[in-house]
């Protein structure tokens, strides 16, 4: 594996569309559930252990070769909100474009052919990691970290939060990100034998409900 390839994939500037999404932070800010660094941290922690764990598991499973079609169906079942399913597919399609330009591979081409409107982003992330010569552990770290970094960046813009505080939140969560990635790698190994149904399905009711509320707003900064 190349550690530098992981940095390229995990870079917030990797052009895969993530900047336009807040991971539910915009809705939570408006509802008054995120008001500063402390509540941002709690938000990110909850997100990490629920949708973050699911995303990391899907990504790790895709990276170690669990069939993407099966994983995509598992992702659908784990994402009740149609708004979030659509966002995940859009982001998957955007990541696919960036990944094919960055690390061209037959596997990415095949996945793009299978899902012209986009597979769930974590599934694409896992296949992209594979194409970059990375492993399940890398894909899991990347997905777990993304599950919190996007919300933190968005909150900096939404609340004019001190960016140093937001970055410190991410640093404090780092050991938990590692832990979630470890769980995801374990789950991916299980899925290789038992299928994608064995992957974690941790959910966050307020993220799901909030996503539907957010989708109905006339005025918003972020796509989700």
């Amino acid at each position, binding site marked *: 594996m190349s550690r530098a390839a992981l940095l390229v994939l995990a870079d917030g500037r990797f052009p895969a569309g993530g900047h336009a999404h807040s991971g539910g932070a915009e809705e939570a800010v408006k509802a008054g*559930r*995120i008001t500063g660094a402390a*509540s941002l941290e709690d938000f990110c922690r909850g997100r990490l252990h629920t949708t973050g764990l699911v995303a990391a598991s899907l990504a790790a499973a895709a990276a170690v070769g669990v069939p993407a079609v099966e994983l995509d169906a598992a992702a659908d*079942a784990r994402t*009740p*909100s149609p708004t979030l399913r659509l966002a995940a597919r859009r982001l998957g399609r955007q990541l696919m474009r960036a990944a094919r330009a960055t690390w061209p591979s037959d596997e990415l081409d095949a996945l793009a052919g299978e899902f012209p409107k986009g597979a769930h982003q974590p599934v694409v992330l896992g296949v992209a990691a594979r194409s970059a010569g990375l492993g399940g552990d890398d894909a899991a770290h990347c997905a777990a970290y993304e599950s919190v970094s996007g919300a933190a960046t968005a909150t900096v813009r939404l609340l004019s939060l001190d960016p140093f505080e937001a970055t410190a939140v991410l640093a404090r969560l780092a050991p938990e990100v590692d832990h979630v990635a470890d769980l995801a790698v374990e789950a991916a190994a299980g899925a290789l034998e038992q299928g994608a149904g064995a992957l974690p399905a*941790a959910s966050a009711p307020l993220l799901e409900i909030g996503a*539907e509320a957010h989708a109905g707003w006339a005025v918003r900064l972020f796509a989700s």
Partner: protein
Amino acid sequence: MSTTPGGVRARARIVARQDGRGGTSLPVLESDGPLALRRTRGSGTEARVVLVGAMSGPLGGDRFGVDAHAEEGALLRVQSAAATIALPGQSKGEAHYDVRVHVADRAEVSWLPEPLISARGSDLRVRTEADVAATGRLVLREEQVLGRAGEETGRLSSRLAVRVGGRVVLDQELACGPGAPGGWDGPAVLAGHRAVGQLVLVRPEFQERPVTPRRIGDACAVVPLAGPAALVSAVAADGLRLRRALDEALAALDRRPMNG
């Protein structure tokens, strides 16, 4: 039922079958230990069962289960007489409660138990699996209340998986209480709400005409799943408000036309 050093094991079973006269019979209605099943007066073609026993359990170490199977064309409604309270037990370790619902073609199951209340110090793992044939119908409600009035919650984790025509349309897991992964009560997950619930509806017609997403109040949403199913998802301050939100959502779904 069997009592093992770890706790009580009990599994109740229901089989519903068309009786050939336009109604539904219950060829199997097996109570087991604390899980007692009673047939009550049905309405029209539907058989009704009330689960009466499980109020005081499950305790730590217990393993309870209920299997319900509606055979082709049968109509079954299952309710419970009171809330189920998860309590701490003598023996260490978590308790388990597994529900399995099978709905054959053209059959319909309404699985509408009272809430599950997680008492302080308890540790319960709930697993609910519904397997619905392509032309089957299902209404399944799951409500969890975290702690009795003014009480902190126990540890509760639940997984709900629904399969329609062999394809998983919903797989959701929620873990709360002491020892649950961090952030469960934070702004992304429950944010201090003490009741959380879901209502799954499987109807073949949703394949062609999925429900339109809508919100009921601040903390309840109705969404189409990826398949012929819909989900109502809600959080609330307490069990009463939760039930009100779920009832309202169900009524709205039945009023139609939710699909425009």
